[in-house]
């Protein structure tokens, strides 16, 4: 029941995250895999640069997962891995994996964790274009 939360500058092993949440009491494993796409608002993106305030990011991620355990008491295992550094198109930026006894809660808990992560976890994304870079969401 101890969530496995990490921020890494190495490529994310999605299979390892799925394996980390496997448990015999869960009949459902659900995962969200976020990847680097080739455009943003119609503007071609070459690559992404993620920056993390690691200690706070892990603290806030712990709060998010604790909220998920409160909302879905049947939630069994959780693993979240977020990449930092420079990512190329197609690279995996984040994996959220959860295990629950039944599937409905696995979808809900997984979506809650990734949605809330995006709101509170201290990770920043700079998009690189052909003609420059921009911090995502920085300005109104």
């Amino acid at each position: 029941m101890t969530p496995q939360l990490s921020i890494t500058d190495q490529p994310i092993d999605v299979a390892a995250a799925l394996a980390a949440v496997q448990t015999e009491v869960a009949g459902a494993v659900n995962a969200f895999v976020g990847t680097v796409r080739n455009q943003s608002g119609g503007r071609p993106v070459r690559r992404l640069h993620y920056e993390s305030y690691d200690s706070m990011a892990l603290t806030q991620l712990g709060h998010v997962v604790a909220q998920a355990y409160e909302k879905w008491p049947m939630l069994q295992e959780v693993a979240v891995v977020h990449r930092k550094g420079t990512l190329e198109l197609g690279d995996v930026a984040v994996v959220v994996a959860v295990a629950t006894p039944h599937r409905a809660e696995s979808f809900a808990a997984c979506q809650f964790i990734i949605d809330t992560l995006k709101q509170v976890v201290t990770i920043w994304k700079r998009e690189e274009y052909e003609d420059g870079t921009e911090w995502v969401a920085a300005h109104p």
Partner: protein
Amino acid sequence: MSLKISLYGITRDIVGTSVIELPAPAPATVGELLAEMRRQYPALAQLRSCAVAVNNEYAEESQALHTVDEIALIPPVAGG
């Protein structure tokens, strides 16, 4: 009392360094810190948001600041 403020993302670009030290008399609260930083670096006021973290937690404007605190400016996050 002086304060060390860590800067991430676009706030580091705006200020031009990853850590800034505010000498005594430094701002006493989160609200005063934000006002002082926006006065010195007006571009900070153009951001969609700028929170302050104290010891890895989001802080209210009324929260008092101490020399030993780990303080950071938190521009709009964009993980995932």
